[in-house]
């Protein structure tokens, strides 16, 4: 799947859960850069991403999700 398409879907997930779009979808984006992306919303975001891409993260995947770029890479590796 194309990177731009994956990012678009992630962006929609973030917007639906955080209810804002004050973030830029560059590879270096981390949770710290985004308002409301805390430990509570993190689990919700991951679950929603799993649904959207019909994938399931492994426990080992979770530590690799350092920023948007690595998130996209992990999603690509699962499809």
């Amino acid at each position, binding site marked *: 799947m194309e990177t731009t398409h994956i990012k678009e879907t992630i962006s929609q997930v973030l917007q639906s859960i955080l209810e804002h779009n004050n973030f830029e979808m560059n590879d270096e984006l981390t949770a710290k850069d985004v308002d409301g992306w805390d*430990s*509570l919303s993190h689990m919700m975001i991951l679950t929603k991403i799993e649904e959207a891409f019909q994938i399931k993260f492994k426990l*080992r995947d979770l530590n690799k999700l350092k920023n948007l770029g690595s998130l996209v890479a992990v999603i690509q590796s699962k499809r």
Partner: protein
Amino acid sequence: MNLFTNLQRSINNSLKSNAFCINTMFYTYADFAQIISNIRVAIKESINENDSNIGLITNDDIYTYASIVALWLEGKAYIPLNPEFPLDRNVTVINQANIESILDSSDTIVFSEFNSISTLNIKNYELNLKPSEVSNDTLAYIFFTSGTTGTPKGVPITFGNLSGFIEAQWALDYTITAEDRCLQMFELTFDLSVVSYLAPLLKGACVYTIPKDEIKYSYIFELMEDHELTYALMVPSILHYLRAYFNEINCPSMKYSLFCGEALPLDVTEEWSKCVPNATIANVYGPTECTIYCMDYTFKRNCENKTHNGVLTIGKDMINTSTIIVDDNNNEVAIGEPGELCLSGVQLTPGYWQNEEKNKEVFFYKNHNGKETRFYRTGDLCSADKDGDVLYLGRVDFQAKIQGFRVELSEIEFHTKSALNKMNAVALAFTNVINNTEVGLVIESKPMDTKQLLDYLNEKLPKYMIPTQIKFVDGFPLNTNGKTDRNALTQLFTNQYM
């Protein structure tokens, strides 16, 4: 003091072994000893001899751990200051504890307006691990916990308290040796961190910490698997997070898996026992006021375990603690009757830091086994069975009054979990817009139809105990101590009126 002579001996005997693994970097006991010695020189040079309460910026690095030992060897107490906490809270703590000097390993000093001493890049001095002379009454640390009134309250722990704890810890059958690899998952502002670094250091074992920017539960799993950890003390919340992935976890190296800080449900523990097939699993209990923990229960595999509402018993007193369960008038209740758990013994804090009002409220003297004994009221509702095992029933203040009836929130949680096949749930009492108390229920799940659940609860519970509102979250938020943040969950119900 024996504690520090033992620590000195342990470090000296282990110089070539690893003492810490921090953010994938290993440090030997020799490295550690060198940094401790260097920081001791800095302390002597820059801190007034009579200045005993020293602030410590809690970074996840070797300098911060070495600072703790250096302060102790100098007979001084540390007061942890988490740089990620709100400035306001840290300043309150600094003022309350009369802190003048702060040890800081940050690249940029956090509190430049105080006598901050950088512990980074001090030049090497001769090794010096010889403890200075300290008395049992000298403070080892002061940890500040949130107070009900909003001002943090300080719990000072003396070297005598800490020695008493360590002696009791060794008396448990959870032996640490120089070959062990031990988890330290706690923020240094949480007192479970103290046993997590001190016990391994006293035995020449290696301490594995968690970098601050990592997701705790998944990082713990990787440490367990990649470094074959053998000893881990965790809060039960970690299990709730890991539960969805239990089938991916198999750690035969784990020898001791301890839990503390929250109620430990039996069903999760049984499932976890398959992830750590060779481990002794234990539920330890204790408030900061009684030095880290003071009661212990060893989980029995393939055997009946004592529970109340699905929560594992907290077992019996450790050797340096004596407990009683009392009614509102401080009279001991009969076997099996609920009451407030009270603790006494050498691990008990001398009292909250400069807070006489609170001290009068929670500490009291009572004749116990023929001796006038000082007790601490834990606020935990418990009962003891005929074997002396103590069952945790809930917080005294989690007990809510709904329409005049006493409601034990853990009971609602228990029945909810039974109905929902292992899903995690928290029951909360919250004040609604007309100032009535209602029961709210938060379920760790995607939204679903709750009719079946409510039918089940209506079968099990009186009407007044049935939750009036149900919310769903994908994961429970944790507070800085890694416990389920009940306050944040309560806001799910109260914020809608704002």
